[in-house]
């Protein structure tokens, strides 16, 4: 945290916002109010309330920002005691320290700190003749209640999801992992937004090198604002020029807890209901939390289905284009006749046809996301009628192509993580172009390049394809398959290679560590 403030001062001139060393508080009350309000531009949402000033009661003023404070705390613990003050002999600051019953009460003279506390929802108490202020914790205000996950929905399992509030999110995780070794460190990123970012990990499970690496990368972020985890993700990921996500995100506390237990790190960004899980491996993007709640055999089957869907979503249109335009001999005769009969009179080459359909589908999908829920259904109706039926009946596209494109789309939706799904969509077009120019040969080239690229990727130093390449026989229990829980005795090898046994509790390790200290 210190480093962040340092950098703010160092680079003050780079930022367009007034960041120069602020004047500290003085002993004159009105001057202090003016000082603070002046820095905040006399914003109208700052509420000022004066207390005392007569009958021997020294004047005190509270400042808070409307909507950021918790009403009850403010009324009962700060305003009420101040209102019914009796004359007091000793200094006003000692008096208020006794009266105000906030959960956290600090004395501060640093204007920067006071302003930041003010805009985080704390109440500032300025007193007559004091060159310092009291900062009473009163954070609160409107926040969304914990609701059902909107993105990673499941049939069986907990139905709570993260909210935009960091402390709610950490609490949700703590409720699942009730161990003292679950450590939370927070830091502030974003020179203007001053967003709170928390890293959570289970001390003793996580590799210390990964923690150091993550903290170092987070510290290096220099940006005016962090509005979502995506900002952070882009700054700290190992490789920018890859279509594949190397950091996972989730809005599910149970997935986060599971990640923590595997020795991974959860990065929580205040203001976003999505937390980041790092390091993330390729196979983990095909695992849903539900896999672990259903029977292992069913889960294994479904996981296999996901990998199959990934292949379909990636390759189906390109295989169709390649086989029908280059390798007709590969198609069984009767299927070929059926396809050929559809192609009769088709105006576009297969590749152009596939391309148009894929683009149309992507447009539809984007429209479905951007439009509100109310119009969403009309988008799908238009889409089905226009793309599905009218285009085929008009003879503009073949029915087989519609089948290929729609099965591709559906296969794409199977992906439990949205960002892996996007990668697939992106790569699909590349494969289609390769298929159209080189046939199956092109697809093979593409797959080889893809495999090389995937094996080249790392996530916080861990090979992206871990457990497959490099191959860890131990980790096969939870890669392509999902073994019964009693067989998953060890944690993923590369993630926690110093504390593998799941039964072995963290505390054993922990005591040893303390002894060392």
């Amino acid at each position, binding site marked *: 945290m210190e480093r962040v403030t340092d950098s703010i001062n160092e680079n003050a001139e780079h930022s367009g916002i007034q960041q120069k060393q602020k004047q500290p508080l003085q002993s004159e009350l009105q001057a202090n109010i003016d000082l603070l309000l002046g820095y905040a531009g006399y914003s109208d949402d700052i509420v000022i309330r004066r207390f005392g000033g007569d009958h021997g009661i020294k004047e005190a003023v509270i400042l808070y920002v409307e909507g950021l404070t918790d009403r009850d705390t403010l009324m009962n613990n700060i305003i009420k005691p101040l209102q019914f003050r009796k004359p007091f002999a000793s200094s006003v600051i000692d008096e208020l320290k006794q009266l105000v019953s906030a959960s956290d009460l600090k004395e501060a003279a640093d204007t920067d700190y006071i302003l930041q506390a003010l805009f985080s929802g704390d109440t500032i108490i300025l007193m007559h003749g004091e060159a310092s202020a009291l900062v009473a914790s009163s954070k609160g205000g409107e926040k969304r209640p914990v609701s059902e996950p909107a993105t990673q929905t499941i049939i069986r399992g907990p139905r709570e999801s993260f909210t935009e509030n960091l402390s709610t999110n950490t609490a949700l995780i703590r409720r699942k992992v009730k161990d003292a070794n679950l450590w939370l460190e927070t830091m502030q990123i974003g020179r203007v937004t001053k967003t709170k970012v928390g890293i959570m990990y289970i001390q003793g499970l996580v590799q210390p090198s990964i923690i150091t690496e993550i903290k170092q990368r987070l510290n290096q972020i220099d940006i005016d604002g962090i509005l979502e985890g995506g900002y952070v993700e882009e700054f700290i990921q190992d490789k920018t020029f890859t279509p594949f996500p190397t950091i996972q995100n989730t809005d599910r506390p149970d997935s986060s807890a599971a990640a923590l237990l595997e020795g991974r790190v959860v990065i929580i960004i205040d203001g976003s209901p999505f937390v980041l899980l790092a390091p993330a491996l390729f196979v983990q993007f095909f695992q849903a939390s539900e896999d672990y709640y259903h029977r292992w055999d069913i889960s294994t089957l479904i996981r296999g289905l996901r990998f199959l869907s990934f292949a379909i979503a990636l390759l189906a249109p390109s295989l169709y284009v390649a086989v029908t335009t280059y390798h*007709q*001999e590969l198609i069984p005769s009767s299927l070929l*006749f*059926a396809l050929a009969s559809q*192609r009769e009179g088709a105006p576009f*080459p297969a590749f152009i046809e596939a391309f148009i359909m894929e683009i149309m589908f992507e447009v539809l999908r984007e429209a479905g996301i951007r439009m509100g829920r109310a119009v969403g259904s009309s988008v799908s109706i238009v889409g089905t009628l226009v793309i599905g039926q009218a285009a085929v009946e008009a003879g503009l596209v073949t029915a087989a192509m519609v089948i290929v494109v729609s099965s591709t789309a559906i296969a794409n939706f199977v992906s439990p993580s949205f960002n892996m799904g996007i990668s697939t969509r992106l790569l699909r077009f590349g494969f289609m172009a390769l298929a159209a120019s*080189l*046939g199956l040969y092109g697809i093979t080239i593409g797959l080889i390049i893809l495999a090389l690229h995937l094996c080249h990727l790392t996530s916080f130093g861990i090979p992206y394809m871990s457990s497959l390449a490099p191959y860890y026989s131990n980790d096969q229990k939870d890669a392509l398959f999902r073994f019964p829980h009693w067989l998953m005795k060890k944690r993923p090898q590369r993630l926690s290679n110093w504390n593998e046994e799941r039964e072995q509790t963290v505390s054993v390790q922990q005591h040893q560590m303390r002894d060392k200290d």
Partner: protein
Amino acid sequence: MRYAIRWLVLLFCIMILTSCWDRQELNEIAIVVGMGVDKIDDDILLSVQIVNPGNVAAQTAGSLESAPVITYTQRGKSIFEAIRKLTKLSSRKLYYSHLRIVVFSEQVAKEGISPLLDFLARDHELRTDYYVLISRNTEAQHILEITTLMDRIPANKLFSSLETSHWAWAATGKVTIDRLIELIAMEGDEAVLTGIIIKGDMQEGETMENTHRLALRTLLQYDGMAFFKKDKLVGWLNEDASKVYNYIKNSVISSVGVYACPEQEGEMTVEVTDAKSRVKGMVRNNQPKVKVSLNIEVNVGELECSMDLTQEHTLQQIELTLEESFKKVVEDTIAEMQTKYQIDIFGFGEAIHRANPSYWLEHKEEWSELFAKLDVQVDMDFHVRAIGGFNRSVPMQKEE
């Protein structure tokens, strides 16, 4: 970044520089499913059966307005020339990878087919999994001009009915082009190809009206097998001989045989469920000798006589009868080939070759004469495995 751009440029080069060398859309090709070869004077008359895709798919199959296939015929000095000349008739490039059958007319086969096989085996576009047939008593061209029902593509119909009848009846043979060339080239074995005839009126069979009837007036039917001496057709095997050929060649999967009941009036029909043959050649005292062992498993399929199948000796009796009568058929067939044609279609020469290569090298030139005098011993072993749904035949129940 630079690295990524470099890759993209390379990928782009792959795409634009290689160009689309053999890209062909499905609506730019004409799928050839059947090919017929006839001869006029010294020229070749090549017929190809092309699928009319608009009229074969499931949704349009109901409409009988136009034919599901088109047959083009073109004259040329060679097959390849005729193929290229066919583009004068067809609006699309002919595509041969889905060829199902090639028909040689009897006439062409008698003159020798090896000059014609070269293109079929050499060209890269053709696969080797189509069957070769001989059109009997008619031109190959006409075989490709007969309409069929159920399987609306006649070549497809021929392909699948050959497979079915080979599987269930065993009097037809599936010979692909590569196997045919092998058989022609092999010393001590000869090629045998299935014959196909047009049953009914040819003129009527060429119209779509033919398929409008319940009992089709004109049909394509497999009939007999043509045997070759090297690449020239010599004669035809009748149904029994065809079966014997398949038994000895170990290519019977299932079949049915009708034999007289032992010691009774009436006939019994047995279903062959498994047939194994072993042809063993040997040379004793400089005399070649071949031993054919047939091991056949049958089920009792139909009985016209009264026999108590619950008795073991009845089954033994049946087995004995089957062995005796089938052995005679086999021996007669072999003897006919030996005396009448001196053509070793059974591959006995190859068996001798395997047994005694040096003897074979010395005598392969005179194999025809040796084959004619060859001592062939036939060992027959029948096993009745199952007797069907009930023990006593209906005639036997009637007697009671």
